[in-house]
């Protein structure tokens, strides 16, 4: 002890340097400064090279090119767009198209995924096996292959417009896509939308009241039928009261082509189907593992309380399973959104496809990559924030 104290009081020069080298704090600072210096050097070199290369190629930098005339057509667009529109508008069309296919895909994939995931746990051997075959099939092939399979393998070889398949509700299917009746909104259509929203709000209020009443008196109130009545009945009543303001423009089979109606192009259909079926197989696995992770005692206790099997699933198992399901489900939703960039393989004009065309025309590689990063990252971050909020709301409140 004495020796140590003596040493620390009279530190030799060599000791000081060695203790400096071995000091984790000093080392940490050294490594970080080194990393920073290397990073700065790397970024500086890359920037210099890029500037040189761009100057050589005579490419002006900056986002001014977004005001220029696009000059290319986009097959399917949610907003008005012609080849005379600006690049900025073309990009907006791309963003909307991506969001459209992502939202529809997420809804469909969730529905299929939950059904298949629950089916895999079915007591019925045949149903469970069918669900397993579905999952093992789609999980193990690339999504791009599924897209191309639908696009080039199935839809491209459907009959031509003259020999379209005639589906219910005056819908036609041929190699140019799915022709559906197009709703035309007459005067007062907004009232129907308002009625729909009022119906949803009223249902939420009724559900809240029903829960409170059940807590107070033990009397259950069946919200489902009231809800269906409110959500669908109110708009229907408004619709009839206003004298049917919404009419449909039906596709009509002409000599060579179908006229009228709205068309969902083969690109959209293949992308949407492929993304939904592919992602559904992952969601099914998440749902299955989430339900299996609920301890058996919970079901047994619910049985002991005399709950029926439907009520057990709805009130005991699913709420607990959802807590486990939500985080991985979020990443699947994000995956689906990112996978929608595979649209470029079938020519659907999503962000990536529009950006690629813009790059070919203008050569603004840096700006377009920056736009890609900004758009995809903001979609990811928005989804993550929403799902984290949802997750926090659902999470188990512990002591």
């Amino acid at each position: 002890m004495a020796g140590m104290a003596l040493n620390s009081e009279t530190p030799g020069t060599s000791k000081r340097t060695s203790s400096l080298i071995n000091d984790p704090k000093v080392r940490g600072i050294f490594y970080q400064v080194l990393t920073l210096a290397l990073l700065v050097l790397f970024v500086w070199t890359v920037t210099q090279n890029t500037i040189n290369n761009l100057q050589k190629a005579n490419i002006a930098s900056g986002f001014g090119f977004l005001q220029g005339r696009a000059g290319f057509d986009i097959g399917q667009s949610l907003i008005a767009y012609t080849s005379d529109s600006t690049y900025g508008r073309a990009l907006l069309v791309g963003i909307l198209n991506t969001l459209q296919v992502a939202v529809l895909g997420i809804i469909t994939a969730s529905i299929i995924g939950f059904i298949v995931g629950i089916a895999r746990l079915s007591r019925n051997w045949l149903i469970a096996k069918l669900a397993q075959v579905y999952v093992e099939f789609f999980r193990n092939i690339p999504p791009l292959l599924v897209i191309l399979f639908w696009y080039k393998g199935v839809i491209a070889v459907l009959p031509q417009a003259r020999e379209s398949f005639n589906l219910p509700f005056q819908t036609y299917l041929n190699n140019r896509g799915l022709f559906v009746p197009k709703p035309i909104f007459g005067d007062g259509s907004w009232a129907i939308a308002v009625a729909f929203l009022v119906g949803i709000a009223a249902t939420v209020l009724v559900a809240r009241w029903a829960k409170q009443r059940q807590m107070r008196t033990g009397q259950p109130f069946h919200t489902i039928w009231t809800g269906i009545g409110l959500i669908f009945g109110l708009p229907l009543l408004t619709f009839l009261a206003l004298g049917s303001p919404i009419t449909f423009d039906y596709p009509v089979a002409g000599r060579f082509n179908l006229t009228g109606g709205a068309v969902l192009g083969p690109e959209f259909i293949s992308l949407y189907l492929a993304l939904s079926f592919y992602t559904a197989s992952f969601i099914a696995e998440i749902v299955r593992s989430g339900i299996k992770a609920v301890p058996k005692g919970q079901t047994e206790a619910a049985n002991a309380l005399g709950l029926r099997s439907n009520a057990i699933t709805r009130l005991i198992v699913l709420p607990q399973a959802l807590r486990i399901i939500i985080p991985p489900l979020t990443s699947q939703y994000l995956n689906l959104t990112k996978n929608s960039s595979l649209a470029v393989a079938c020519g659907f004009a999503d962000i990536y496809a529009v950006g690629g065309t813009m790059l070919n025309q203008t050569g603004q590689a840096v700006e377009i990559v920056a736009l890609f990063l900004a758009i995809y990252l903001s979609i990811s971050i928005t989804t993550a924030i929403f799902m984290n909020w949802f997750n926090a709301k659902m999470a188990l409140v512990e002591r």
Partner: protein
Amino acid sequence: MASNSATFVRQDMLAPQPAPLGASGASHWFRTKLFATPKDTLLTILALALLAYTVPGIINWLFIDAVWTGSDRTACATVIQGGVLPDGQSGACWAFVEAKFQQFMFGRYPADERWRPILVAVLFVILLVPMLIPKAPHKGWNALALFIILPFVSFFLLIGGFGLPHVETQLWGGLMVTLILSFFGITVSLPLGIILALGRRSQMPVIKTLCVVFIEVIRGIPLVTVLFMASVMLPLFLPDGWTFDKLLRALIGVSIFASAYMAEVIRGGLQAIPKGQFEGADSLGLSYWQKTRLIILPQAIKLVIPSIVNTFIGLFKDTSLVSIIGMFDLLGIVTLNQSDANWATPVTPVTGYIFAGFVFWLFCFGMSRYSAFMERHLDTGHKH
């Protein structure tokens, strides 16, 4: 009392009785597994109807009505399409796959030199199989040969070295490129992912921030965008006169993408290690790298092996995306060959994709089965 109770003691064992009728055997299985309740019965009947409606048609299309031999499109086309099949018949065109099989495997690699990829594949299998068998000895040397030596040898064998004629990467294609991309991606992403994961858990703010930004940005954007950046931006970043091979750009893009995902998987494993393990290693006087290498990583990686394999499966499937940036991996070459006028029929694309899908499926399914096996094998029962 004593004599009374003795009369109730049984002296010999009862012979075992068969289970009650209907509690076992085929009828029991059918009753409980298929027709337990009216709802189950209805579902079973619906499922059977669905199978009866689809399966015979699919089998017919795939095997019975399929064309197995032929030299060009006439074999697979109906009379109205300019072929020999009777009108209305439709079946898979396996003759197309047969004729293009070499291309699907090797791309446009010169026919005389195709023994080289085959040799690489044989070497790969020889080194991989003992690696996958847990009981096989000398894992360290095996890993060295598989992950360090084999890539170099293969590179020179494939591109031409050791006095072999040069074959440029433009000509590589098919399953060969798919496997090269995935093997390279797997080999690079695991160590890089470990480093990124360690960096993300580091206490040095600069290194931590760098790793977090890298991981989150790469995970937030689609692989197509990463590949696009690798193919468009890399040439811009380099000094004048430097060029990158297209295959190399794809390799870089795929590896960067996979490492970000791998880093998150490894981080999950690191977070699951109890604090006591870190403290125990510290109290033994181990340095950071000794602690990480000997105590932490072996436990962390073992915990996340299933997720690592899942990342590998994802990577394998994702390599198909390089066809978008103009490379001809298995999917790319299948798509390319469909536009061959010699084979253009309505059934050619579907057949090609079914073949490609089957190959992808085989590899991915194999990997997932192996992962399940390893999970059981490594389960030491320490999990709580």
